[in-house]
């Protein structure tokens, strides 16, 4: 299969049509590169050291103006909600985006990921994705330089403040929830998880934040094609230096995003589906922001952990073929996957796409980016109607 060279950041449909997608759902490039699609690529990222990182370019503008910045190398993340961009990636635009206020205070956010926090002001921006523009979206600027990170935020985990620690210029959270924290952050400050702060100069304290003020999944605020997304990546059996695919906005709203016979997996209240592995039931989830199959532990899986520099991944002495079953009210779907030793995969250097990368994960099944290779995966936004019913759900 021939692959044309990747032109990252092509926003114009005409340019996009010139790309060959290497495999994928049987549609021609011109059909896919319609008005609601943009290129996503699996590369090593801005520091050329990311494994299975899915990146795209996002354009942001000061609301209602043509004062804009296209930011490349933004991580596409179905496991989070909302757009976050390093101040350094925005250049002069950073100072032109209106800051959200709470009374006389400026609203800052301690954005909480599983392994890190990101700190910075909440601002308003027009966000363009897949040739569609959402107006006045609450967005987080990652910037720890002007207002120091409060102790309570630092106590949660390491702060990622630059390209080196983030591995990207930003994170585009396009999961099925609209706001990043949800109802929990509307509670009074002593009872909420502490995402949002009101800051007077450099003195900050936790505040309650209404959901429509919270940082939002920009897809939810598009004027149309706003019921979810489809991620389309080609199949891959082996490691490679790069891969190109599509982020399409809308489910069942255009020729290129029909869900067909995709099966629906609705999440529970924590945002998880059910995965059965070796007869036991676990919480599972589909996440482009995780860069491997992360599941369980060495004892349960029988796969040895890597030592030294590949700690955090599995290192079987020879490839292991596995299967697990995701269950929904519509039925079940068995997923077959293979795990190859991470030390072997990383030894050659130069690759960025690793379909057989796996590692441990406490008591959950994290279907990371390799799961998306060779599938059309739909993520439906909570409360939005689709041909498969109302979100939230994943479908594939």
């Amino acid at each position, binding site marked *: 299969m021939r692959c044309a060279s990747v032109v990252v950041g092509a926003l114009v449909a005409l340019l996009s049509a010139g790309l060959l997608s290497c495999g994928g759902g049987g549609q021609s490039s011109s059909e896919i590169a319609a008005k609601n699609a943009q290129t996503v690529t699996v590369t090593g990222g801005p520091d050329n*050291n*990311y*494994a*299975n*990182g899915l990146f795209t370019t996002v354009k942001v503008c000061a609301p209602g103006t043509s004062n804009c910045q296209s930011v490349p190398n933004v991580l596409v993340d179905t*496991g*989070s*909600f909302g757009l976050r961009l390093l101040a350094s990636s925005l250049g002069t635009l950073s100072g032109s985006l209106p800051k959200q206020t709470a009374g006389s205070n400026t609203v800052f956010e301690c954005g*909480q*990921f*599983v*392994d*890190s926090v990101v700190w910075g002001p909440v601002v308003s921006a027009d966000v363009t994705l897949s040739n569609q523009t959402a107006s006045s979206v609450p967005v987080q600027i990652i910037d720890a330089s002007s207002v120091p990170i409060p102790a309570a935020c*630092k*106590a*949660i*985990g*390491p702060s990622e403040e630059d390209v080196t*620690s983030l*591995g990207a210029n930003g994170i585009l*959270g396009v*999961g099925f*929830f609209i706001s*990043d*924290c*949800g109802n*929990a*952050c509307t*509670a009074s400050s*002593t*009872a*909420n*998880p*502490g995402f949002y702060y009101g800051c007077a100069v450099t003195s900050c304290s936790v505040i309650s934040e209404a959901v429509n003020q919270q940082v939002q999944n920009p897809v939810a605020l598009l004027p149309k094609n706003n019921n979810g997304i489809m991620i389309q990546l080609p199949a891959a059996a082996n490691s490679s230096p790069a891969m190109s695919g599509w982020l399409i906005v809308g489910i069942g709203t255009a020729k290129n995003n029909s869900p067909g016979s995709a099966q629906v997996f609705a999440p529970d209240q*924590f*945002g*998880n589906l059910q995965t059965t592995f070796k007869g036991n039931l676990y*919480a599972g*989830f589909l*996440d482009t*922001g*995780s*860069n*491997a199959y*992360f599941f*369980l*532990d060495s*004892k*349960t899986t029988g796969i040895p952990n890597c030592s030294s520099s*590949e*700690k*955090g*991944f599995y290192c079987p002495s020879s490839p292991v073929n596995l299967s697990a079953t995701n269950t929904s009210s519509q039925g079940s779907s068995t997923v077959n996957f293979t795990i190859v030793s991470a030390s072997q995969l*990383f030894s050659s250097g130069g690759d960025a796409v690793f379909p057989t990368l796996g590692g441990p*994960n*406490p*008591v*959950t099944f*994290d279907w*990371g980016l390799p799961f998306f290779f060779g599938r059309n995966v739909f993520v439906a936004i909570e409360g939005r109607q689709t041909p498969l019913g109302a979100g939230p759900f994943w479908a594939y």
Partner: protein
Amino acid sequence: MWNQLACRCLKPYIVVSLLVPALVAVPAFCVLGQDVSSVASDQAHMKASVRVLVTSSYAIHEMSMAGGTTVRQFASPAGTVFAVTWQGFSPDLQQLLGEYFDEYLAAASSPHARRGRGVYVDTGDLVVETGGHMRFAVGRAYLRSKVPQGVDVNALR
């Protein structure tokens, strides 16, 4: 009375399953590696209900917190907290890990072993594993040297 029960093991050890619910207005956090009677409270964060489950191998001090987060601290028969698990919004890890938080931070901040999302820290004694997604962090931290004989750490959740 209930305050004192919040973070204390029964001695000598009772080989019975016993559920002792204890509602505390100012609950106490046990700290990894410390004796369960160590009290490290943080009034600003904590308005949690606490319950203690005693098994033959260890005692679980379970706290339910803001936004539906659950934290469990596992204490050995000798009364040492050897493991802590959490699920939900990320908890105050500095408080839970105590003196081990800096070690965790250093290991978690060091250049990635190319791993994206979730942490796997193993410094020899301290092991910290996290996973999950936004609004649902799952984590487990333990000290190898303090895990009681026969306890399978992978079963701790």
